[in-house]
């Protein structure tokens, strides 16, 4: 089976996110004052061959821990879908 994995890697709460800050300012200058708490991270998408969804998820988690997310500064969130 092939699964498609979506990972959202976000700066850890409490850490400064200068990029999010700048975008929040820009949005409000553009008339989107109602937007707040902007945070910017990475979206990673990949296809994965695995025997089951839970297997796919476990592998994807390992990839995040080892490579895709920086455990010092980032948290991540996984979604797995059949493809």
């Amino acid at each position, binding site marked *: 089976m092939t699964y498609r994995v979506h990972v959202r890697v976000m*700066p*850890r709460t*409490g*850490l*400064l*996110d*200068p990029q999010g*800050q*700048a975008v929040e300012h820009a949005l409000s200058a553009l008339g989107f004052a109602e937007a707040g708490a902007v945070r910017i991270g990475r979206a990673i998408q990949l296809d994965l061959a695995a025997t089951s969804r839970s297997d796919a998820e476990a592998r994807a988690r390992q990839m995040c*821990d*080892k*490579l895709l997310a*920086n*455990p*010092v*500064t980032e948290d991540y969130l996984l979604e797995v879908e059949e493809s």
Partner: protein
Amino acid sequence: MTGSAVAGSPEASAFPGERPVTPEAVREHNLNELEYGRILELLGRAPTMTELGVFSALWSEHCSYKHSRPVLRTFPTTGPQVVQGPGENAGVLRLPGGWAVAFKIESHNHPSAVEPYQGAATGVGGILRDVFTMGARPVALLNSLRFGPLDHPRNRYLFAGVVRGVGDYGNCVGVPTLGGEVAFAPGYTGNPLVNAMCVGLLRESDLIRAAAEGVGNVLLAVGARTGRDGIHGASFASEELSEKSEARRPQVQVGDPFTEKLLLEASLELITSGLIVAIQDMGAAGLTSSSAEMAARGGVGVEIDTGLVPTREEGMTPYEILLSESQERMLVVATPTRVAEVQRVCEKWELSATPIGRVTDDGIFRVKHHGLTVAAIPGQRLVDDCPIYHPEARESEEARSRRSAVPPLPPKVDLQNALELLLDSPNIASKRWVYEQYDSTVQASTVLGPGGDAGVLRVPGTDFGLAVTVDCNARLVALDPYEGGKAAVAEAARNVACTGARPLGITDCLNFGNPEKPDVFFQFREACRGIAEACAAFDTPVTGGNVSFYNESPTGAIDPTPAIGMVGLLERVERRVPSHFAAPGDDVLILGTTRGELGGSAYWAEIRDFVGGRVPSVDLEAERRLQEFLVAAAGRGLLRSAHDAAEGGLLVALAEAAIGGPYAASGVGAVLDLERYAPRVALEGLLYGEDAGRVVLSADPADGAALAELARAHAVPLFRAGRTGGSALELRAASRVLSWDVEALRRPYFEAIPRRMQHADAERSAGE
């Protein structure tokens, strides 16, 4: 001993919800019994938790220099060129025409070991602030880096992350990186070194010092909001890396170079317009050290209300606000009548400036939080009364025996093939992979960028320029700290002089292990003795610097690495001398004396797998004459190129000159005859020995007589070795002819590091 005056301090209350001050809490704050006793005596009562945090920060090694101060006092720090010696945010030297140069180096080793990208980036941010808070516009950055060997994935990851962090920050702020150094050795695995240096220009009349003055003046927090990051950074920098450091990870500081650029422009505008009394970076130990140190320098007290400090998160305690190391923040002192104008300037640069306190007349460092006094400490004693230690210094038996050892193994390859192997070693190979990631031409003043002996920049609107470099051969320091210390200063001075500039002064970043270990303290004391002697001999005073101790990891202490940052004056910048052969048909000359000393050499390390032996001794008088000769010859326009022989010896220096600059279409060969040069020296030592005080020159043959005359006048040995030309580096010596195709040398030299770093960005975890 200071502080026998009246003990006792006004009362302070615990902040609601704060932990009690227990012996365990004291230990966690890295304060020993002696120090805690001193605190009790000085306050005349038990400290509050907030106060304990304040003491812990200011009495950390990083802020108090408690193990190094007596040794640092031995440095020469004066001279007619010194405008500002050690003690301020940066040292300042006088230049012609009312100009002055501010410069400083700073370590960010431990943060970079945990998070290489942000650690390095914030290191650059901090050193930039140190320079522009003096009223100087930053015009150059340099960096001195050390990692474990590149065959280890974790080291590659650290190297890649650090270089990217250094680059991204400096590039965004718009300050060119003009030079630096990188070296790799096993001792740095687990404890890389990241030292950043900044050089700034100012009108001497604009110099501003970080001393709070004027009772009633207002303290303003300018720049970024205060978050929970980096709390305990200063004491973190003052302990060995261990498993426990891992637990401190969430305290990583994140840099925002964009805000830094705004802060830079706003600060310079505030200073040159005369709107403010004093300004200081909230660096290590944040608001605490900046306010306490400014008050102590001004001989006044301060009162801060942490409740007024703009924070990034809700519910921050005074303890957290005082000790936060959030980046891109400044503390500014202004008279009450100027506050509104200060705020207007900051607003123009999209920065906030918030009054958070005032200068007082009672000498107390007082902190309130919405009216509740949570800390009240006699300010001068807080800054001055940390106990000073005089650790035992004893060279280890092992270090002594390494010095008298000789290589046990035969060479891996013959003398001919050793050259390519040396050029392929990351320590000697071109660092183009590194400096290509650094903007080296922004500000449109770069006369000589990275890739030569020293960077050179012009001072716009004048005829003169500055040469800048940072150097240290840690292998020499490890084998013989005294000679190694001398050698580091001598190499820096030689690099500056090779461009034609006169060395003016230094800043130093002293990276060592745990000073409580006698062999480490021996290294420290002896290296400093060497540095002090060399600086005295060259008339290059120490204007400031940084001590980084506790550079140890589970695998042991690092090689002692006192990086020397130097600035030199090039009176006519268009006379700058590059490092590489310029054209065929020039004379090739060798300056200095060759004895063929291989102790501590790269040749022994790389080709015979041996680090040891007696290192070459630096003859400071001869070095000084050599520098004077170079400055005089360059000033008269007699030199086409000059390159010093350092790691790899004379042959590597010749090869580098022939290989050409990083973007030359091709190299320039040479045909050289060394039969009559140093006839008693064995060929191995002649080619690869690392005697100090030698430079490879090229010059128009028509200037040969003038150069010979000048060399005689300076009593510097000068040997005419041959001519540039052809596509080979050909060398006759000891009845042999050795020849290398220059193209064949270029490849390993430029490819050594990129080849090893192909996929390094993705290697964080591979080696964990």
